């Protein structure tokens, strides 16, 4: 099974620095299967045209391909309808759209935005900017020593002044799954909306936005086998309908006058300019690919791999692992003695192993962990236990190489 999956990713079959590539930087971006590469190629060879404009045949083909991809995204996360899916450049743009359009219009002095210190910068700075511009207050849900949060703390923090709760479904550093469904329920009880950063959850598990009950959900294509530069924002229909566009131009208009204009209906009023058509087509192909394998199968595979990696890494002397002992998602962040993560990543790279080293776009979380940076290995559907073994033996060699630094 896994061999058949690996066969479909051309990039995996190469040597890096004389060793077969072991790609463990999937939380940063995933690799692309041949079907996605082919879908983008086919689009440019047979369908390329601008959407929603041309009367000609290619115009219809491109529009069908683009709108077809939107329907795939809607079904993939179980949105009520495809008009609630807005294509964006990625999670960052999706979250910024909610911040600039929705949050700025509803927040005022004394209102509250609730979030956590472990948010990715893209789910933190937009809210900071809203707070600075509107006089709203940022409130942080306290973190437990293992990086989890407690529902009772959310309960205590959210008040009737809370306008918005922003939280990642899965932390990109700590590998924890947050109880977003319960948090959504708390937020709604106080009349607040909940924005879920789905960058690290959508690629790896079955997501049902209606079951979560979230008001907004943001995702990135490139972390789930699709090209870079495409992502989506899901929103509740009534909220999206009431929101003003933040980008104006072609494509998004209904009627343009000299002094006033009106907008198209959802979702197009938020998609000013020629959209990322080929990217959307690639995302549609990636969703087909993932669904053919099955999100349940992917989830199970990663859970098994995460448990194996946690066991093998914790056997290593001098390794500090951040986050809870139990993992359901394939993200393991660690440090190896006193060896700087950059040095670890360089030694691993010399053996063909790609991991991430740095602050993972989570500077506040690094401060909370009292480290300047960490190493992170993150897995996806094509990784194997052998990849984990290669990682562990390379880490042992790293320790030997740096001698008494550990």
């Amino acid at each position, binding site marked *: 099974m896994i061999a058949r999956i690996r066969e479909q990713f051309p990039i995996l079959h190469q040597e890096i620095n004389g060793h077969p590539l072991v790609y463990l930087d999937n939380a940063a971006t995933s690799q692309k299967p041949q079907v996605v590469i082919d879908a983008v190629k086919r689009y440019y060879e047979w369908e390329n045209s601008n959407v929603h404009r041309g009367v000609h045949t290619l115009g219809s083909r491109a529009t069908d391909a683009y709108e077809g991809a939107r329907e795939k995204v809607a079904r993939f996360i179980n949105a009520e309808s495809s008009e609630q899916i807005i294509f964006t450049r990625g999670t960052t743009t999706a979250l910024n759209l909610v911040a600039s359009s929705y949050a700025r219009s509803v927040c005022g002095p004394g209102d509250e935005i609730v979030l956590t210190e472990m948010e990715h910068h893209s789910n933190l700075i937009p809210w900071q900017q809203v707070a600075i511009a509107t006089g709203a207050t940022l409130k942080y849900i306290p973190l437990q020593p293992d990086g989890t949060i407690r529902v009772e703390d959310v309960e205590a923090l959210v008040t009737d002044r809370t306008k918005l709760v922003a939280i990642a479904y899965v932390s990109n550093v700590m590998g924890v799954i947050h109880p977003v469904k319960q948090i959504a329920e708390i937020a709604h009880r106080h009349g607040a909306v909940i924005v879920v950063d789905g960058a690290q959850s959508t690629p790896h598990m079955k997501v049902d936005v209606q079951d979560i009950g979230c008001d907004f959900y943001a995702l990135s294509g490139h972390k789930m086998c699709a090209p870079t530069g495409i992502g989506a924002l899901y929103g509740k229909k009534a909220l999206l309908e009431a929101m003003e566009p933040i980008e104006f131009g072609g494509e998004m208009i209904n009627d343009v006058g000299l002094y006033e204009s009106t907008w198209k209906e959802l979702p197009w009023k938020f998609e000013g300019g020629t959209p990322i058509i080929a990217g959307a087509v690639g995302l549609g192909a990636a969703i087909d690919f993932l669904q053919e394998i099955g999100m349940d199968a992917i989830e199970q595979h990663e859970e098994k791999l995460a448990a194996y990696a946690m066991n093998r890494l914790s056997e290593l002397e001098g390794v500090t692992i951040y986050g809870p002992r139990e993992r359901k998602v394939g993200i393991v962040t660690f440090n190896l003695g006193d060896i*700087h993560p*950059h040095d670890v990543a360089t030694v691993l790279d010399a053996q063909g192993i790609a991991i991430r080293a740095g*602050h993972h776009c989570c500077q506040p979380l690094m401060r909370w962990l009292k480290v300047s940076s960490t190493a992170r290995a993150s897995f996806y559907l094509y990784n194997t236990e052998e990849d984990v073994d290669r990682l562990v033996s390379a880490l042992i060699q790293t320790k030997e190489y740096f001698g008494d630094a550990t």
Partner: protein
Amino acid sequence: MQLDDLYRRVIMDHYKNPRNRGKFEDDAVTVDLNNPTCGDRISLQLKVENGVVADAKYTGEGCSISMSSASMMTDAVKGKSLEEALSLADRFSSLMQGEDVEFEEYEDIEALSGVNKFPARIKCATLAWNALRKGIDAK
């Protein structure tokens, strides 16, 4: 790719036995610089007297390359005029671009020539030197 090209013995020596690590009690030109992509940080202090770097110290956090580079740089600039220190910084930039440069005043620096083969690590090596330039500019 040979790791030993990067992590030469001289570099590891400076990393494990850093020279000039610490802070001056009294006034000194202080430059705080960080590398936002990786979190490496340096706080460089220069004592400049009559156009000469009389003494230099640093504190910071970072990888073996950035910290050993800071250790070497602070050693190398001591007793140098500001112009000489800038010329060292210029030659260090050339070294990072793969040019064959000699540092007869302080040969340890030449051990960092291997960094050039590891493009992702060049910014680690240049952090301390960028702090030096800023410190000299501030003077």
